[in-house]
């Protein structure tokens, strides 16, 4: 499973974000994803591989075609959400704990 760094780097690329935007509309084969994007089809395949490794995208064979879709169980988005949530919460916690500690320190000094 992807770690947060892998997720961030997977999503940091504008072409890969464009690929995901496409897949938000529904499952698509590579050719259809590539259409309208300013990159070659092999490049899109490469980007899909990175997204797949990050747990954001999955694929399946339908006949001779390979269809790509956003992995609903991939949990990539959920992980990113929790990661960001706890980051924000702990920063706020640190501020509160240090303010409290400082208050107690002042009281002791008096």
């Amino acid at each position, binding site marked *: *499973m*992807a*770690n*947060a760094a892998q997720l*961030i780097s997977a*999503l*940091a*690329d*504008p072409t890969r*974000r464009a690929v*995901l*935007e496409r897949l*938000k509309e529904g499952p698509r084969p590579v050719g259809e994803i590539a259409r309208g994007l300013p990159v070659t089809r092999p490049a899109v395949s490469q980007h899909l591989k990175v997204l797949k490794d990050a*747990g954001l995208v*999955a694929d*399946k064979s339908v006949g001779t075609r390979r269809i790509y879709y*956003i992995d*609903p*169980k*991939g*949990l990539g*988005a*959920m*992980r*990113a*959400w*929790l*990661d*960001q*949530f*706890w*980051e*924000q*919460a*702990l*920063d*706020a*916690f*640190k*501020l*509160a*704990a*240090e303010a*409290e*500690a400082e208050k*107690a320190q002042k009281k002791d000094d008096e």
Partner: protein
Amino acid sequence: MTSRIRPAPVRKSIFVQAPQARAFDVFTREIGQWWPKSHKIGPVDVERPIIEPREGGRWYELDVDGTECEIGKVAVWDPPARLILVWQLTPDFKFDPNLVTEVEVLFTPEGDGTRVELEHRDLERFGERSEAMRETISGPGGWPMLLELFGEEAKK
């Protein structure tokens, strides 16, 4: 295609310039001082979240109108070193009694302060609530927000 996904836990570590016991107290008894107000369950504003200070205690949100909304439970209450909370919120911040994920928080003295390590685990259980996941992923707080966020990050 049916292989189960076992995502790694979300792990965070932070150093706080506060003694261990105080760090534990601020995290638990004074959670209302720091818990992000944006992360709420009820339709009205949050007064404060409350962690009942005992094993088996409730973890809930008290709203300004007096409503109480469940967040989870206290699984392990071991001050000032260790706390395990049960988080039962889906990604769209709805309480689901069938969703059980653990948040373990360790408080360890370090230098003149405390190292606080948080681990949110059993994340694959969110996957079993795939309906809520789909909503979140497609909702305003899901993909659009995440993509925007990472877009901003990528600019740096």
